[in-house]
């Protein structure tokens, strides 16, 4: 199945953005948390909680959407002969970037996907998050212009590219062996939330199907929320941006239809109103995503098509979620965590160090 990739056209990416924009609020209607139909960071954080990497009782659930994202992409990649196992482009740096991207996102309470879904649900705090995200990505483009790069990958064994998909299968199997038991916070080895966002979820099979569909479409279209902003700032290229804007518009319309739109700053679901830290948290996340070459969703889709380095970034995010909750770095609706501010500052310094030192004019 080769030939022209219609999803890579302008209308293709707009269509994919529209699909995600409609499906995400529908997942919310089906049970996912408020303005969190899809949030890659939050969902990976919930997975970290479900397997006990942190013990924040309100955010523990293996999110099938994430599993679907990886497998949808893998299926598309195999079907269109784009599966290409590759690895070796500064994996440990990607791990660290993933860790701090997660920490930044959890200070804001959402990744770029959720930032726009929050905006589309009327949450004004998302504006600060999106401004911070843009600022962080802009800093990233300055490094890119000055020769920052992660080095070349190498082609490798098929198995290497299968590692993250296999981990995802493992998570799904665990979920089927140890399903949620009504009123119990633990089932076998897995932790489940009894209240809070972790207790809110669409039916497993629907989450998985939507995840697979989005993973498939996103692999074909190269949908990337960070790339949308980066390409606009760096090249004046608005291809990816049109998909991102389409997502916002269709999510907004779907929220209106479903009665899920509520404008304001205070009292928004899973959000706080500390503007400076909403901005700074997403600055950190945006810079980390820009240095790592993709938003958290894109890293999952790349993992599905065989990119072992993107898989390391994903694992970094999941571990980062563990740190974020174990160390009191993650925010809550009450505001930033006790050590969230320190973590943002350290994260920015680490990202700047990486950006300044990994430069080479000729690669």
């Amino acid at each position, binding site marked *: 199945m080769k030939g022209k*990739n219609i999803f*890579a056209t302008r209308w293709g990416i707009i269509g994919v953005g529209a699909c995600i924009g409609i499906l995400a609020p529908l997942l919310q209607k089906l049970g996912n948390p408020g303005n969190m139909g899809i949030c890659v960071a939050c969902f990976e954080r919930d997975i970290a909680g479900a397997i006990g990497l942190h013990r924040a009782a309100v955010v523990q659930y293996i999110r099938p959407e994430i599993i679907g994202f990886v497998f949808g992409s893998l299926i598309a990649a195999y079907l269109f002969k*784009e599966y290409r196992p590759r690895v070796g*482009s500064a994996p440990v740096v990607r791990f660290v970037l993933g860790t701090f991207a997660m920490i930044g996102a959890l200070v804001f309470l959402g990744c770029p996907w959720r930032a726009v879904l929050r905006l589309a649900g009327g949450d004004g705090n998302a504006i600060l998050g999106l401004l911070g995200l843009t600022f962080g990505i802009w800093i990233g483009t300055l490094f*890119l212009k000055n020769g920052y790069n992660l080095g070349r990958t190498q082609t490798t064994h098929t198995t290497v590219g299968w590692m993250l998909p296999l981990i995802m299968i493992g998570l799904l199997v665990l979920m089927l062996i140890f399903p949620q038991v009504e009123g119990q916070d633990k089932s076998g080895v897995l932790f489940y939330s009894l209240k809070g966002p972790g207790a809110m979820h669409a039916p497993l099979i629907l989450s998985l199907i939507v995840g697979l569909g989005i993973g498939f479409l996103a692999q074909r279209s190269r949908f990337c929320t960070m790339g949308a902003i980066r390409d606009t700032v*760096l*090249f004046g*290229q608005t291809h990816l941006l049109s998909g991102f804007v389409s997502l916002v518009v269709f999510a907004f319309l779907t929220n209106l239809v479903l009665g899920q739109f509520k404008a304001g700053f205070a009292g928004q679901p899973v959000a706080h109103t500390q503007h400076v830290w909403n901005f700074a948290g997403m600055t950190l996340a945006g810079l980390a995503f820009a240095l790592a070459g*993709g938003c958290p969703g894109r890293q999952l889709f790349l993992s599905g098509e065989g990119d072992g380095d993107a898989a390391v970034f994903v694992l970094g995010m999941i571990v980062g979620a563990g740190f974020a909750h174990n160390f009191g770095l993650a925010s809550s609706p009450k505001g930033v965590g006790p050590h969230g501010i320190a973590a943002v500052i350290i994260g920015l310094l680490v990202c700047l160090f990486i950006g300044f030192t990994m430069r080479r004019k000729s690669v």
Partner: protein
Amino acid sequence: MVATVDARGLSCPQPVIMTLDEIKKGSEKEIIVLVDTDTSKENVTRAAESQGCKVNEVSPEGEGYRITFTKE
């Protein structure tokens, strides 16, 4: 003469940055870009066309693609 940009193994956005650098700074009219993913092939082609270049050929090479275009 032909300028060759080897962007194999580099991930987004490096291939586009290198292509644009060559278009803007290089002296050769004909440019060949080597990439190894379909994403890079699409991005480099799109970037070259946005600069007014004429893409002459995109052919498979090794595990990737060879993109040939000329500057206007």
